[in-house]
Structure formats: structure tokens, C-alpha cells
């Protein structure tokens, strides 16, 4: 496996275990690599649509479905509290973890809270809906907005 994919796996492992984005220093330690090389690999992983870093080039904003910053989409699983990037990713976290989860979010129009228990068989019957404005062909033109 190439260095970039090893780094990607380390980032995801950190998110899954700690429910937060890894600091650059932590990835340097794990990969035994200087900061400049890790940052260059982050940029390549963004080009491969695997990670999104912030403008500083070292803070991970998104490792889908995990979010590196707090959002309105919270997932509680395995005794941890994760932030998801969007409604889809709030279901993506329990799917990735293969764990039962509680998803806490809201109706974007009314702000009414949404609280769902997801088992490994998915959500209970519900009349709530998911809606995305951006067409699939444009998702990565601005993935943070999407």
C-alpha cells in the first residue's frame, strides 16, 4: 500500500477511535514522517477525493463520513460522540463503524429535533426525508457546501 493510503487509513483509525480529527503532529508520529510530507500527502488525498483539509493545509475538515469540526449532525456510538458532515454522513458513521448508534440532528426548515436509534438493520420506520440540492456531478466542486 502506498504512503498516502497508509496515512489515510491512520486518519480514519484515529477518527474511529477518538471521535476527533488527528493533529498533524500525531500523524507525523504515527507515520514517522516530517510535517511537510504529511501535508503534501493530505493535498494528494484531497485530489483523490478522500480527505478535505482546511486552509492551513494540516487541519482535517472532512474524512467522510467523519467531520473534523462540530456540526448539527451528532452520532453517538461505541460510547463516543462523533460529528458527521451532513445528514447522509450521520447514517454513514454507524454504517462505517458497524455499530448501533443514536443520530441526533434536526429538520432544517423548522429546527425540530430528530433523534433516531439506528441498529445494524437501519433506522426505524419514519416519515422524515433527506434532501440534497447539489447534483451528484457537482458534489466535489464544493464538497463543504454540498
Amino acid at each position: 500500500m502506498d504512503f498516502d493510503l497508509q496515512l489515510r487509513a491512520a486518519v480514519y483509525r484515529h477518527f474511529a477511535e477518538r471521535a476527533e480529527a488527528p493533529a498533524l503532529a500525531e500523524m507525523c508520529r504515527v507515520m514517522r514522517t516530517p510535517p511537510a510530507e504529511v501535508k503534501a500527502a493530505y493535498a494528494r488525498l484531497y485530489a483523490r477525493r478522500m480527505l478535505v483539509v482546511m486552509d492551513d493545509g494540516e487541519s482535517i475538515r472532512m474524512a467522510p463520513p467523519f467531520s473534523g469540526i462540530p456540526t448539527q449532525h451528532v452520532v453517538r456510538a461505541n460510547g463516543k460522540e462523533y460529528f458527521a458532515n451532513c445528514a447522509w454522513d450521520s447514517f454513514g458513521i454507524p454504517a462505517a463503524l458497524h455499530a448501533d448508534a443514536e443520530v441526533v440532528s434536526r429538520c432544517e426548515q423548522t429546527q425540530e429535533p430528530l433523534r433516531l436509534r439506528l441498529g445494524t438493520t437501519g433506522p426505524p420506520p419514519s416519515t422524515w426525508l433527506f434532501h440534497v440540492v447539489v447534483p451528484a456531478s457537482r458534489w466535489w466542486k464544493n464538497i463543504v457546501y454540498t
Partner: protein
Amino acid sequence: MLFFRSEEQVDAWCAANAVPKRPLVTLEQLWQLSLAWYSTRLTPDARRPGPDEMRQIFARIGLDGPFWDPQADTF
């Protein structure tokens, strides 16, 4: 990518934000989509689905048409 309580609330939000209403997705469809997209994401060789895989995943759960086509120019 957002949740809504009902189709009425989607309509109200789209009107208030001057954005087009898109195909609606049920939570069961969203779960199937999430499994297809993310269930192997923590494996070492995980990757995002390619365009053909994306079309197959969307079609399998009833999401088809140009809006869901990752290479469509119009929708």
C-alpha cells in the same frame, strides 16, 4: 445534504432559500446508500465509489435520472 420533517418542509425551505427542489430520499433509502458508500470505509484499501459504481448504487435503491448521474451535464 439535510433532513426534513416532511415534504411540506422541504418545499418551504427550498422556497425560502431560492433553491430547486430535488428528488426526495426516504430514510430507508438513505440507510441503504450509507451502507453501500461507507460500510468498508474503515478498511485499509477503502476508496470512494467510481462513477459506474455510483450509478449502480443509486439505481439499486431507486435513485436514477440525471440528478444522480455523477457525470451528467444537465439535470
